[in-house]
């Protein structure tokens, strides 16, 4: 009877290790997912790092339409709009665009924009030299800002893509603005 008891405990022990391991695997999927998104451009995640301007090259013969979209996260009190709705751009050349944001809440707030590109396969060809999404913005109550974006689309953008949609979602980070509260 003792040997069978031992056998039960061995099976139960091994399976319990598997349970703990799979719980850990659930959490391991979080960094794995980020890595896979980085490699494949899944979900239209653009690089969050500024790149340098393209070296001047022979101008491409085609035009790509860039559409600008803005979304305010449901719980945040902001107006957030692109200054221009669409632009015709030549791949390989640098362009300026901007978004306007107003803090509608009656108190100072910190906002953060999160970009996304559709179709997602265009994400890795969409490069930002300068972007307001790289930093957070601090606002006084009712504060307004026009925020710049400098970008270019790589010439390698597949021919099948003639429209690229750039979408920003604006979030209230829920933090207190640091320098405003000092003043």
């Amino acid at each position: 009877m003792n040997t069978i008891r031992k056998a039960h405990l061995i099976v139960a022990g091994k399976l319990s290790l598997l349970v703990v391991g799979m719980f850990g695997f659930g959490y391991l999927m979080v960094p794995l997912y980020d890595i896979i998104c980085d490699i494949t451009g899944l979900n239209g995640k653009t690089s969050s790092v500024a790149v340098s301007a393209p070296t001047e090259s022979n101008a491409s013969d085609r035009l790509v339409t860039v559409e600008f979209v803005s979304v305010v996260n449901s719980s945040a009190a902001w107006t957030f709009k692109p200054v221009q709705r669409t632009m015709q751009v030549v791949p390989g050349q640098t362009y300026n665009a901007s978004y306007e944001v107003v803090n509608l809440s009656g108190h100072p707030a910190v906002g953060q924009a999160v970009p996304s590109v559709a179709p997602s396969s265009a994400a890795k060809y969409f490069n930002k030299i300068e972007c307001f999404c790289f930093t957070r913005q601090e606002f006084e109550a009712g504060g307004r800002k026009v925020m710049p974006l400098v970008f270019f689309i790589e010439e390698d953008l597949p021919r099948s893509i003639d429209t690229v949609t750039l979408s920003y979602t604006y979030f209230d980070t829920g933090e207190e603005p640091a320098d405003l509260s000092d003043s």
Partner: protein
Amino acid sequence: MSTATADHHDHDDHHGPAPGLMRWVYTTNHKDIGTLYLLFALVMFFIGGGMALIIRAELFQPGLQIVDPLFFNSMTTMHALVMIFGVVMPAFVGLANWMIPMMIGGPDMALPRLNNWSFWIMPFAFAVLLSTLFMEGGGPAGGWTLYAPLSLQGGDNLAFVIFAIHFMGISSVMGSINIVATIFNMRAPGMTLMKMPLFVWTWLITAYLLIAVIPVLAGAVTMLLTDRYFDTSFFSAAGGGDPVMFQHIFWFFGHPEVYILILPAFGIISSIIPTFARKPLFGYASMVYATASIAFLSFIVWAHHMFTVGMPLAGEMFFMFATMMISVPTGVKVFNWIATMWRGSMTFETPMLFAIGFLVMFTIGGLSGLMLAITPADIQYHDTYFVVAHFHYVLVPGAIYSIMAATYYWIPKWTGNMYDEKWGKIHFWVSTVFLNVLFFPMHFVGLAGMPRRIPDYSMQFADWNAVATIGAFGFGFSQLIFVYVVYKCIKGGEKATTEVWEGADGLEWTVPSPAPYHTFETPPAIR
């Protein structure tokens, strides 16, 4: 065998169940715990069914008549949670408790005290889950999949739901560890793995699936909990997280989960069809390998639930073809069941009727699943009633019918009495007619574009929704016949023989009916 039988009678005199109600609280007997699980599942079946009837009553006509949309949404959410975690899973665990030790010639489950715990956690978990309906703000209403960010924007019921899911998960994992230990260590000498009945095989594989994926679900809901209450940002884009990641983690659990809900059913059907066809199961070994392949494939198809989130083309292609591949081992199974019946001396007692009903209607659900697997088509079908029709066809005439077939098949062994054959057959036919009246029209409204999880709909869908609601009430109330038959069988009836069914094969049919409190304390001889 007859000597073994005599032994049991002796033991029965000394070690009967303890008297009084506390027997059920303290019991470590696999048969008692199996009964508790099955009765719990039956009670939850009517609670979950009541929720379904509220949903169908609201959908009888377009417009809002009976409930407000928030309550409607919490009904769809709770109906799913109750039916999956409270009915199908406990019923299968109950059948495993009753039958696995008897089928492999073991005296009891390997870890009897753990077994008692696994069961008694469940009523508390469901009390917590159902109590959210009576809280301020109502129950969870974001769908049973708890997709972030929607589930994070609801009320504080989320904390209770997560607590309940953790406890259901602990119960399932403990039950599964117990089943694996039982199958590995408690088999009678000579009962090799490839001699085990298929119900035991399918449960062994299911137990591994549960142990592998329930912890992933536990991780996913823990992330929801910390996102909601402890300022983490796993799924919040503002903090660098990604809501789509929740869907990936959830469905990594969710897809194996749907096989957890159907593999034991395959085992049951593989026991019943040979009995009533009076032929051994066709292709036993291929059945075992098919089950194992389905279990393996279930881990690499999860993103077919998310074709519309915007995956790269290569990802969509991979998940489409991997999903379609599952139809190969499933097709092997369906072929084997049909081949078992081929030229058999078939009779059509109630368990066989339910098994054939399973075979026909589960295959309908399987074929609509194949349609949904086609990525370009799925973009049209996604989140419509076509999906609702699909998974109800595989779960109701699939999982639920197999549980009912199993009940009719083994209840003479459990109670020692034959059930009422006439009422059993009436139950089957009434259920089957109403079930198709209920679910078949959902294909039509789904293809026409009716979205799921909505309390109101466009006028064009009115006729078929009215038909479905009539089917729902017919199906719901016809389950009272099942309760009547089970009750009557427990109370008395024609005495069942040891073998019960003429063509039955297996160790459970060598012990007397009703099965004594302790069976196989001395291992049986295996042919």
